[in-house]
């Protein structure tokens, strides 16, 4: 594994509460990411303000919330400078689940009929395709979607992909759906938060993979040399006790979104945290650790 950094550039993070990096910075400075008692105070609704404005076609009215979110973060982020040879990846846990739920209801509960426009909107990469179609781009694109394990897929994929020299673009996001309302017990808290950025491998600053640690104590030993620690919502409490001032989580912005690690990866850069930060992701295999240097 190469030990160089990879720089994240042209980061665009959007939801109903964040329209630009300044909004995120204020949320951070006001302690919403580091104080669990405030986590419920940020309300994320499904709608991004002005989501239709940048889409030059009436197709926008048939696009899902996920497609609108992905289009907007690409448009306001790395899409502007997208080169033809750059690969674009979408990480999403339950892509287009809103449309799938619509189809499921229509076919299995209602009367079998579906509008021909609905079906293609149910495929998992369609949000990226809308971007290439409406902007006439020939780029490589793929959706990587592994349900609840999508965050782990992202973490693993990222560490592999940055070993290749070519820059690439990451998109991530989720959409809520009536499907989740059917759930009986703990309902997933899905937040309409979207992100896109360009990853430029082999740089002097940025993010790099440090390794996978099996137990939390070994992770805590790393904390001393770092300005800030960004971790998943589940591990937040675990690490908060060890290092009260430094530990933050994107949980209030992303909830249980399986693709949340893609947001976490960009926070130190987006917030312009000077010096070194740690990015932690807990999964079934342990704690994957990335380091960020700004």
């Amino acid at each position, binding site marked *: 594994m190469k030990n160089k950094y990879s720089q994240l550039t042209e980061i665009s993070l959007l939801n109903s509460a964040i329209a630009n990096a300044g909004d995120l910075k204020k949320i951070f400075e006001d302690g919403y990411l580091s104080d669990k008692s405030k986590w419920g105070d940020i309300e994320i609704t499904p709608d991004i303000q002005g989501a239709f404005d940048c889409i030059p076609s009436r197709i926008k009215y048939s696009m899902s919330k996920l497609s609108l979110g992905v289009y907007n973060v690409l448009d306001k982020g790395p899409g502007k400078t997208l080169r033809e040879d750059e690969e674009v990846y979408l990480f999403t846990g339950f892509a287009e689940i809103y449309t799938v739920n619509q189809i499921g209801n229509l076919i299995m509960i209602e009367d079998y009929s579906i509008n021909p426009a609905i079906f293609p909107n149910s495929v998992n990469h369609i949000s990226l395709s809308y971007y290439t179609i409406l902007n006439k781009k020939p780029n490589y694109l793929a959706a990587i979607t592994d349900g609840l394990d999508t965050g782990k897929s992202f973490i693993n994929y990222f560490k592999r992909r940055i*070993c290749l020299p070519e820059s690439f673009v990451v998109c991530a996001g989720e959409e809520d759906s009536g499907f989740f309302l059917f759930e009986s017990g703990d309902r997933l808290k899905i937040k309409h938060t979207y992100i896109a950025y360009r990853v430029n491998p082999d740089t002097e600053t940025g993010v790099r993979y440090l390794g996978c640690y099996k137990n939390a104590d070994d992770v805590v030993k790393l904390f001393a040399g770092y300005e800030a620690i960004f971790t998943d919502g589940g591990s937040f409490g675990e690490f908060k006790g060890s290092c009260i001032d430094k530990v933050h989580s994107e949980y209030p912005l992303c909830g249980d979104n399986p693709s949340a690690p893609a947001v976490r990866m960009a926070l130190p850069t987006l917030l312009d945290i000077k010096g070194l930060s740690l990015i932690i992701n807990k999964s079934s295999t342990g704690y994957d650790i990335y380091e960020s240097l700004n």
Partner: protein
Amino acid sequence: MSDRRKVYINAYSSMQGLGMNVKESIAAAARETRCPVLPVPGKAPDFDTKPYFILNIPDSGTTGHTRCAEIALRLLESIESGWRGKGSIPLFMATSTGGIKETEELYTGLIKNNQKFPLYQKHYFYDIADTINGKYPGLFEESYTFSTACSSAGHSIYHAYKFISSGVMDRAIAIGVDSLSITTKIGFDSLKLVSPDGTKPLTLQRNGLTLGEGGGVLLLESERNENTLGEIAGGFSNSDGYHVTSPNPAGTEQRNCMLKAVESAGISLADVGYVSAHGTGTPVNDKIEMDVVKGLFGGGVKVSSLKGFIGHTLGSSAITEIPLVMDMIRSGRIYQVKGLGDMIDPELTPPGSFDIDTDYFIKNSFGFGGNNVSIVVKVYR
């Protein structure tokens, strides 16, 4: 290309309507008839044609996991001697609709009040990786599911190829599965893409696709061994940037995709003797693909589509078909369904089965949104 490592295909398998493995499937294809036609299980809408199912795969009710997961498990088992004992192996999975059949059952389960929770664990792909990791703990912890509709498996192969050839990993398993469901049947029917009397790909009489169920698996490694069957020699993928469901009639990006795939293999167009077409049997898709192939290769290549035998196995189509094509090329004969119709271009696609003598072929797969993937395969004969 000189600094790239070769990516050897050291084991493969395929299951679809023709058979449960490559040998059985090729024996069935040699009879030059379609795979057996079975009724749609469960709540079946009143359609004129029946899709092509994998025989001998029990439904999820008896296995405890999804049908796609069951197909994936059987595929992995079928090449187990190739990967056992080699430690943890990255898994590049592909599916378009994997698990949607069980999601459909979930809706009826909700109505009948007999649904098990939590729902999201039964929804979609989650169950495939979960089932595999349940059976083989610790071996496939690194896994990725590529889902780009009908080109999904092309991506899983392309990425495994890319990482191995560049030295990022030494081996990987690419696997693709898709089972049939009411949703896909009704979905394609809503787009008027389903043939009323069975698919007739690459013919003048083509009038739509027939859905098929299938799966395939490739063990890809950087080291050749005594079982090596061939190589993933190159690959490329791009987007039409044209339309959600229709390919660009100009075929510009499909052409670029095939051309750059050949270039990535470090060979010339003249080295490619066969194109395994995406060839779904829809009027528009087949015409454009044939025009592109003709424009690129002239008359110097043979083209056919296996979907006449096994239907369109959606996200798994590329990886379901590659092992079958490799076996056919090794035997020197490409089989086709007898009496499908008059070919769009008889120079490229001879009527009926035909002899073939080539080391290299291209496998095309094209998905919704204009998502194109071309994989170049070298067959060891």
